[in-house]
């Protein structure tokens, strides 16, 4: 017999033997009840059903989890990309239709979206606040000048609107790039632990991204946003008073109230700006020396809290990077002036999109609370400074 024939015979013999062994196994007794019952350990199929997945999950569990998580993050990433592209297109179209620039602004705008800010070194944190303020103001001033250069006949209101939309698109661009970076790095290195913090942060990032996308429409139409509730309340108090400019995009006025002198300050509306309240406060202080400061601002609500609910407290109610708050606290501490705060609660989305009815309706209650604080904490012949903090788009005074 040739070698080949011998091999073939052995192979057939093996097959026959395997077939016999297979037939010996009692597959006929297999039923779902038996398969999953804990008392019957004799069925080899049951043994395989339990053992094989355990091995698969032991060896490939992390990788399976990585694939599932990756697909979730990938969906989020696609959404972020569409938000960025949509808002970018909206901004370009808005500029083209309202400003009618002589040349196509697309390439210039694409350059703005890539702007970055390098924070000062904090190895020695002493004196870091003025450095941060300087850098942030350089960015603000430069962006404003760049927007101004888009068209010769651009109004102050349009500059402020476009600057705000530009910031929204740049933030969406940053979100997209950062998420994509972590996602691709984790995939490239099959690094599951790297993708976990990203998975945890994704809902927060997506919430803010959705809010920014919706905010663009409010900015385009010049509608007041949730954050504008502070300027809205103080703006109402400033009606029928003489408004004077005190700092960049910031106005103030005076009024008598039950024998007291009241000073009001807010960003100059209806432009989309937060003004420079800290600079304004320093100047008003040098001139009027108020006995108390009352700040009104929007504040982020905790989950479960009602939109438009009001809370009173102490300290400088002002958001942002922290430089304005630092400056206000410095002045108040130096002169030993108490700061009272009233906040109107809302979510991050409500703060940067069209003001909701619940928020707008809180204005009258907050106004009466401000007067109550002034009555309770000042005597006649004393004075108080009331500051409406926030973006004053769509809110005049």
């Amino acid at each position, binding site marked *: 017999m040739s070698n080949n024939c011998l091999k073939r015979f052995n192979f057939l013999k093996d097959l026959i033997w395997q077939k016999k062994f297979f037939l010996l196994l009692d597959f006929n007794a297999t039923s779902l009840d038996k398969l999953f019952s804990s008392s019957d350990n004799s069925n080899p199929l049951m043994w395989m059903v339990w053992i094989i997945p355990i091995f698969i999950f032991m060896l490939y569990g992390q990788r399976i989890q990585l694939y599932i998580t990756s697909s979730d993050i990938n969906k989020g990433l696609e959404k972020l990309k569409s938000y960025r592209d949509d808002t970018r297109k909206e901004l370009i179209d808005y500029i083209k239709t309202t400003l009618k620039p002589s040349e196509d602004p697309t390439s210039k705008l694409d350059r703005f979206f890539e702007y970055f800010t390098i924070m000062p070194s904090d190895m020695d944190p002493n004196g870091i606040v003025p450095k941060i303020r300087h850098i942030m103001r350089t960015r603000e001033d430069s962006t404003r000048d760049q927007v101004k250069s888009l068209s010769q006949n651009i109004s102050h209101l349009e500059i402020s609107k476009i600057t705000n939309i530009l910031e929204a698109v740049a933030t969406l661009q940053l979100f997209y790039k950062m998420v994509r970076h972590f996602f691709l790095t984790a995939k490239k290195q099959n690094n599951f632990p790297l993708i976990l913090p990203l998975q945890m942060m994704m809902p927060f990032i997506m919430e803010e991204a959705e809010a920014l996308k919706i905010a663009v429409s409010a900015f385009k*139409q*010049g*509608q*007041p946003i949730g954050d504008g509730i502070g300027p*809205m309340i103080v*703006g*109402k108090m400033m*009606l029928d008073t003489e408004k004077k400019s005190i700092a960049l995009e910031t106005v103030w006025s005076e009024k008598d109230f039950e024998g007291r002198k009241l000073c009001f300050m807010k960003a100059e*509306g*209806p432009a989309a700006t937060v003004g420079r309240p800290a600079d304004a406060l320093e100047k008003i202080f040098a001139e009027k020396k108020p006995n108390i400061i009352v700040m009104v601002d929007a504040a982020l609500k905790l989950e479960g809290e009602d939109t438009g609910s009001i809370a009173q407290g102490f300290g400088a109610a002002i958001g942002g990077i922290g430089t304005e708050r630092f400056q206000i606290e410095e002045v108040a501490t130096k002169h030993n002036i108490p700061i009272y705060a009233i906040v109107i609660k809302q979510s991050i989305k409500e703060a940067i*999109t*069209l*003001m*909701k*009815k619940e*928020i*707008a*309706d809180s*204005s009258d209650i907050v106004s009466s609370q401000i007067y109550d604080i002034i009555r309770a904490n000042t005597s006649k012949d004393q004075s108080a400074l009331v500051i409406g903090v926030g973006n004053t788009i*769509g*809110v*005049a*005074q």
Partner: protein
Amino acid sequence: MIFRKKKEVLDSYSIEQCVSCNKTNKRKFKEGDFIFKTMEKCTSCANGQMMISKIFGELVK
């Protein structure tokens, strides 16, 4: 999905209020509206001025 969020759609409204008789008028937001913008004379009391007192979004049901 159990935790799927409902999509919120807001309709924007402007509230005009007479500074003299406090009569209010709710209407759809128009581009160019802003809070404390002075509008035409009040049709109800004839001597007061209408002013936009609020602009807000209401959920579309």
